[in-house]
């Protein structure tokens, strides 16, 4: 723009000296703007973000992927497996015409209540699975007629919340509230047997792409993981780069040894050496020289024709086929393997091997290039070489497997029935179909509930695919939804995510660091897209077909190979024009916005990608240094006249995946736009994810602090969802008075953290106080605690299931006993809180050990007692019950918050009781600010002892200043400053990453209100009344209470339970266990020589036992009798650990006689 203006106003400038001309130039006005004015920013372009999130949502990746699966992929799978025929009756067939997934459906439909909608919340409460029927339309032969049946149910499909099949989609807040659902809940998870399960995003290497890698020994290999619906296989082209063996070979699982590459080429029909060398070197002398030994080797092996090559390969092919089949000639075997198994994704039609040959040639060339220049290997950690697998693709794998198994079973059953010579009724396949109901349903439920994806067909066995949705806090739930886990080797350490699509801060510490990642805010993950139209389009744009190419053309100067999803289409000589045209068509909306195209100049290739699992994000298009999005557009967006889709449709914004991003020149701000710029960032803070987005001023913090906060934000207690009080979760932490942070970020508003916050704005004084604040301990103000600071409620679920047993008996609830056996005993008030129905009453205070459900279990579970027999003629059978009450075991008393009585799918009564504790902060409770600065409460000080500012304000928390220098959390200081300014001015401040309220402005506000610009205050000691000699950094900081609380952890024991086998004290707090004096502690005592102490700790306080030993034979005996010596003469008594006695006896049982030789001591 600058350049243009210079030309336009050149006429106005009529000065002689150039300096003067320049001065004049600076003064020139155009539409009220000076030439030297900075490039105008597009106002509020961050408004695109909420617009994006409105259509895409926070977890749209999951939902899109699931929708794609349910609506498109499902039908595709059925179409490829549509026919079932019978081996017995050739006239029989069954064909699937269509498949669809119905709306969520209650399993017990005969239930009275089935008139109302089946909501997700009912599933949570009743431990049901949120699923809908899978209905198929079938056409089959019955007798001699063709019958069409519609809407046959073959199983149930778990439904993802907020997907197109879910009842919550497109509902208003009021409607959601009626269904007890939180409008802020992002959805994207499943409810399986009452638990919320997330299918995590799985990361893996790209399928169907060539990856070249080298190792330290000089071995270079190119490999492709081919993946089609039928087959998954891995093909290697290996070059061992050492003096003895510099040949290139092909390696594949179905071939028993490595095959020289030239033989493979010959087997595929390229018999002339010249042709081969041309395909690989393309006339390049260097590559020709490198490759020639291979040709020579082939000649030495005397393989010249295709037949010879095929015979050679055929002898190496592993035959997996059953012996029953007729053995085919080896050459045919080889041909079959080469066409369908090796590089399975490259199609071979009518034995036209041309595309596959060229594909192999390219792989060889890539290997040669890497041999010549070791920088040309691919980076396996590069995000562009990775694909993210989402719920949809994982479910489709699972469904395909289950559906095939279902069909196979069906076929077997049909065959079995058709084999019967005479049937009473006409054979109806529909009935058979109905009988196979559960295998698909159970397959889904089992896989999602356990997280084990076992697909025998692909030899796939993956564990830990699903996670329970963490409902510790709202942020924790969001965090699980955006989490990415890596599928391959856990040993690979990656130095953190490197693409802008992944959050740079949010990764766990320790083992999984860098392997588990999180998506950034604006990331989108693509789903598969049709290839055929793209292929046609590419040819229309002037590509030379791959089938008509020889090596000479392939490597012609300026020739660029064009790939579509890793498959070569052909070549073009004008790659830039081609790419430009292609992009223009995409911006017009002629092809999907998620198709990416980019040029790789190293390989002279243009890559078009339309496959699923690529991460991409939207950017503003810049043309001729002008961003296409203008303030006008944003204003329209604000007025709701435009949506994000319009921005895409009008070609103002487009999605770029990682590879295309690398081919673009992206400016972060308008002022950075130069001639080469192609795109403009929407907002820089979108590089962070939802969890890291909570941190104010993260760009001022030392980076690991942000990572720590990402882990801790998920443990903060706060509001969980609007339906939090309707939920009966195993463990629910709620804050009594949560507050939205004084210093928020744009991300906070976008994800709704201001509506479901987890923390409170505490007035913090950064000073040392009392010595109870060392090592990050915090000093709390007692008055603040009294007034509700850090107060939280902990709710725990207790479940009693009224079981039905196989013999017809069942559990029952008894009313509380009228009188207790021992009215003065310790358990006298055990039944006190029970209502007359035998369940504890709501609002009652529960003491440890009290009964909350007075359940009775039948004593006889094996004998067949016909309970349901008509009473009239039934023999009077007395069946007795025993007590099996549900008792409250926690050490602290609680209150009954809710009681839920319902039935499960199996018609068993389910009683859920929620017990609540209200917890006040105490010594040792953990708190944290939003900057990875955690600390425990070290002391609670009365208000009069607290220091106070001149206005009389006492801090809620005193934090030790030693927390700052080494942590370098400058963001926290700025948060305090901005928070203080916000409080004084009466408005919220922003601490958005790479932006936010400026320190200078904050200082100005402070000064305006009579405070020091530095945020420091004059503070008086509450104890002496004298002012502190130093000035104190004083103001509000958002503090989170973390779930680690002392009451859950403290434990001590004097006497208590012992393990049955060893008679040693039990282990662990939950079992009231002892505190172990471990080996290292024992070593200390041994070294010190405290033998009596050792004796006491290790034996007397543990498992001391009196044994009777026979001095003669040295074996253990009875009291006063040795069974071995048949004598009572030599028996003595001694003490030893019971575990030692046990050892001796176990040794004896193994025919080893441990003899004790006793001496006077």
């Amino acid at each position, binding site marked *: 723009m600058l350049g243009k203006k210079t030309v336009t106003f050149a006429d106005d400038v009529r000065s002689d000296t150039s300096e003067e001309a320049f001065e004049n130039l600076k003064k020139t006005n155009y539409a009220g703007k000076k030439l030297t004015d900075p490039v105008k920013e597009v106002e509020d372009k961050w408004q695109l973000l909420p617009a994006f999130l409105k259509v895409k949502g926070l977890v749209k990746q999951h939902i899109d992927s699931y929708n794609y699966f349910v609506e498109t992929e499902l039908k595709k799978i059925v179409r490829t497996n549509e026919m079932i025929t019978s081996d017995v009756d050739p006239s029989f067939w069954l064909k699937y015409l269509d498949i669809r997934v119905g709306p969520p459906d209650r399993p017990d439909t005969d239930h009275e209540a089935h008139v109302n909608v089946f909501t997700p919340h009912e599933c949570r409460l009743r431990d049901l699975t949120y699923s809908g029927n899978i209905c198929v339309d079938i056409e089959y032969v019955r007798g001699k007629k063709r019958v069409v049946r519609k809407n046959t149910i073959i199983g149930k499909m778990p439904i993802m919340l907020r997907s197109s099949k879910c009842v919550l989609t497109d509902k208003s807040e009021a409607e959601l509230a009626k269904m007890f659902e939180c409008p802020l809940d992002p959805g994207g998870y499943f409810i399986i047997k009452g638990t919320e399960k997330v299918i995590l995003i799985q990361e893996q290497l790209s399928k169907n792409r060539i990856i070249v890698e080298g190792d330290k020994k000089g071995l270079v290999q190119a490999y492709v993981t081919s993946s089609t619906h039928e087959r998954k296989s891995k093909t290697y082209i290996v070059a061992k780069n050492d003096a003895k063996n510099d040949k290139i070979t092909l390696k594949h699982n179905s071939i028993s040894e490595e095959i020289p590459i030239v033989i493979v080429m010959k087997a595929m029909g390229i018999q002339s050496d010249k042709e081969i060398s041309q395909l690989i070197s393309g006339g390049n002398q260097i590559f020709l020289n490198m490759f020639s030994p291979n040709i020579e080797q082939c000649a030495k092996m005397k393989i010249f024709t295709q037949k010879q090559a095929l015979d050679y390969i055929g002898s190496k092919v592993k035959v997996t086929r059953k012996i029953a089949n007729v053995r085919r000639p080896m050459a045919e075997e080889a041909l079959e393997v080469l066409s369908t198994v090796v590089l399975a994704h490259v199609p071979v039609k009518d034995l036209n091997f041309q595309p596959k040959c060229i594909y192999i040639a390219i792989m060889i060339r890539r290997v040669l290039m890497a041999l010549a220049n070791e920088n040309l290997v691919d980076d396996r950690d590069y995000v562009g070489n990775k694909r993210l697998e989402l719920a949809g693709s994982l479910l489709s794998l699972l469904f395909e497997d289950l559906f095939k198994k279902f069909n196979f079973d069906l076929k077997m059953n049909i065959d079995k029935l058709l084999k019967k010579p005479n049937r009473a009724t006409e054979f109806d396949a529909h009935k058979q179909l109905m009988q196979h109901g559960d295998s698909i349903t159970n397959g889904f439920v089992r896989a999602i509930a356990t997280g084990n994806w076992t697909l025998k067909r692909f030899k796939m066995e993956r564990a830990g695919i699903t996670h329970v949705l963490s409902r510790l806090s709202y942020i924790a739930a969001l965090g699980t939804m955006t989490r990415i886990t890596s599928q391959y080797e856990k040993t690979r350490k990656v130095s953190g995510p490197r693409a802008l699509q992944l959050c740079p801060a949010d990764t766990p510490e320790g083992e999984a660091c860098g392997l588990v990642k999180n998506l950034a805010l604006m990331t989108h993950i693509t789903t598969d897209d049709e290839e055929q139209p793209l292929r046609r389009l590419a040819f229309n744009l002037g590509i030379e077909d791959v089938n008509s190419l020889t090596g000479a053309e392939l490597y012609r100067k300026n020739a660029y190979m064009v790939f579509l999803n890793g498959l070569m289409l052909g070549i073009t000589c004008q790659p830039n024009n081609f790419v430009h045209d292609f992009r223009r068509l995409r911006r017009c909306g002629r092809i999907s916005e998620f198709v990416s195209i980019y040029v790789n100049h190293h390989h002279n290739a243009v890559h078009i990608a339309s496959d699923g699992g690529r991460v991409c994000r939207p950017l503003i298009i810049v043309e001729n240094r002008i961003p296409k999005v203008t303030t006008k557009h944003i204003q329209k967006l604000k007025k709701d006249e435009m949506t994000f889709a319009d921005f895409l449709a009008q070609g103002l914004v487009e999605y770029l995946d990682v590879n295309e991003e690398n081919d673009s020149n992206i400016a972060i701000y308008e002022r950075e736009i130069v001639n080469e710029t192609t795109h403009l960032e929407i907002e820089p803070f979108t590089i962070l994810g939802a969890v890291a987005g909570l941190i104010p001023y993260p760009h001022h913090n030392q980076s690991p602090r942000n990572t720590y906060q990402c882990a801790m934000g998920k443990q903060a207690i706060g509001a969980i969802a609007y339906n939090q009080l309707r939920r009966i979760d195993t463990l629910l932490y709620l804050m009594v008075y949560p507050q939205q942070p004084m210093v928020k970020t744009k991300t906070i508003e976008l994800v709704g953290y201001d509506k479901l916050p987890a923390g409170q704005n505490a007035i913090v004084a950064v000073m040392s106080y009392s010595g109870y604040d060392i090592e990050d301990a915090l000093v709390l103000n007692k*008055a603040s605690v009294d007034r509700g600071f850090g107060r939280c*409620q902990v709710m725990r679920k207790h479940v009693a299931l009224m079981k039905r047993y196989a013999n017809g008996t069942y559990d029952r609830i008894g009313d509380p006993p009228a009188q207790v056996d021992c009215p003065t005993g310790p358990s006298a008030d055990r039944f006190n809180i029970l209502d007359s129905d035998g369940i504890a009453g709501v609002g009652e205070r529960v003491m440890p050990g009290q009964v909350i459900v007075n359940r009775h279990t039948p004593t006889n579970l094996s004998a067949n007692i016909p309970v349901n027999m008509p009473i009239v003629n039934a023999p009077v059978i007395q069946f007795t019950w025993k007590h099996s009450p549900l008792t409250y075991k926690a050490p602290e008393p609680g209150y009954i918050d809710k009681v839920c009585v319902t039935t499960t799918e199996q018609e068993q009564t389910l009683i859920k009781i929620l017990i609540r504790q*209200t917890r006040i902060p105490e010594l040792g409770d953990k708190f944290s600010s939003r900057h990875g600065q955690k600390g425990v409460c070290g002391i609670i000080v009365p208000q*009069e002892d607290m220091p106070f500012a001149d206005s009389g304000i006492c801090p809620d928390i005193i934090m030790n200043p030693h927390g700052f220098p080494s942590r370098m959390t400058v963001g926290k200081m700025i948060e305090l400053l901005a928070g203080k300014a916000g409080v004084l001015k009466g408005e919220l401040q922003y601490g958005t990453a790479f932006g936010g309220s400026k320190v200078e402005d904050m200082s100005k506000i402070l*000064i305006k209100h009579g405070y020091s610009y530095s945020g420091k205050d004059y503070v008086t000691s509450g104890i002496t*009344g*004298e002012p502190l000699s130093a000035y104190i950094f004083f103001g509000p900081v958002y503090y989170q209470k973390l779930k680690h609380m002392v009451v859950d952890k403290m434990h001590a024991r004097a006497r208590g339970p012992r393990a049955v086998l060893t008679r040693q004290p039990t282990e662990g707090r939950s079992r009231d266990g002892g505190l172990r004096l471990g080996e290292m502690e024992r070593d200390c005592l041994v070294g010190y020589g405290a033998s009596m102490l050792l004796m006491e700790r290790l034996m007397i306080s543990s498992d001391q036992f009196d044994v009777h030993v026979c001095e003669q034979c040295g074996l253990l005996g009875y009291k006063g009798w040795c069974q071995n010596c048949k004598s009572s003469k030599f028996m003595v008594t001694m003490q030893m650990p019971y575990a030692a006695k046990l050892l001796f006896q176990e040794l004896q049982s193994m025919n080893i006689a441990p003899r004790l030789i006793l001496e006077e001591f």
Partner: protein
Amino acid sequence: MDLFSPANKPEIRIQELTGERIRFILTNTDLSMANALRRIMISEVATIAIDMVQFDLNTSVLADEFIAHRLGLIPLDSTEADKIKYPRDCNCSGACKECSVELNLHVKCTEEDTTKDVTSKDLVSHDPRFTPITEGPKDAGILIAKLRKGQEIKVKCIAKKGVAKEHAKWSPCAAVAFEYDPFNKLRHTHYWIEEDEKKEWPQSKNANDDFPPLDDEIFDFTAKPNRFYFEIETIGSMKPEDIVMNAFKKLLEKISSIQMGLHSNDVPINGREPTRDVF
């Protein structure tokens, strides 16, 4: 300084007095006395606050403890708190009229579309002297909970006399500002500055009432503070001047008990001989 000479009697000059705040200058006394006064005002002036809540019915969304906590923090008019006994001084076993006030709260929402606010105005006190405070007739009261149609709260509250040492709900004051020497003539503090102290540090409002230092004033290292600026903001349960007066009373009580202790060395304490005499 001789505290007991008639010339050096402590003096109070009230600067400002409104319904909820008082500003005064205390002179002619020691820092320790002034600070003691401040501490007592915060933590030891007795007020009345709800201490026990008996829930007969609570179908609101809030938990019982939650509501009880909120009820406890509602300021009750405590002007006549001295007319009532501390529970520990009362002879009754639980709560009686001598040592407690009963308040009742019974609200049910019958409105169709809106929620009903339960406020401190719904609290019915059995003793007209101790009621939840209001700021005039327009005051909506302090929000306790919101009820939806059909929800109901019925509780019996027992308010007792207490001090903020035990729980902050008994504190009569919100903030107590306390300062002396606004010009830092005594150099008890060190201003943190980058360049210029006067430019960078705003003056406190008490500076208007103090004597600004002369430019060539010599630092008197023997000087003791004796002008103390107080500002007390109440939470409404007591008049600000009452808080100060009650605090003085309490302070006097404390001082006299110390004096008694000092002068009665030979008198047995709690029926025991002083330990000093053992040897």
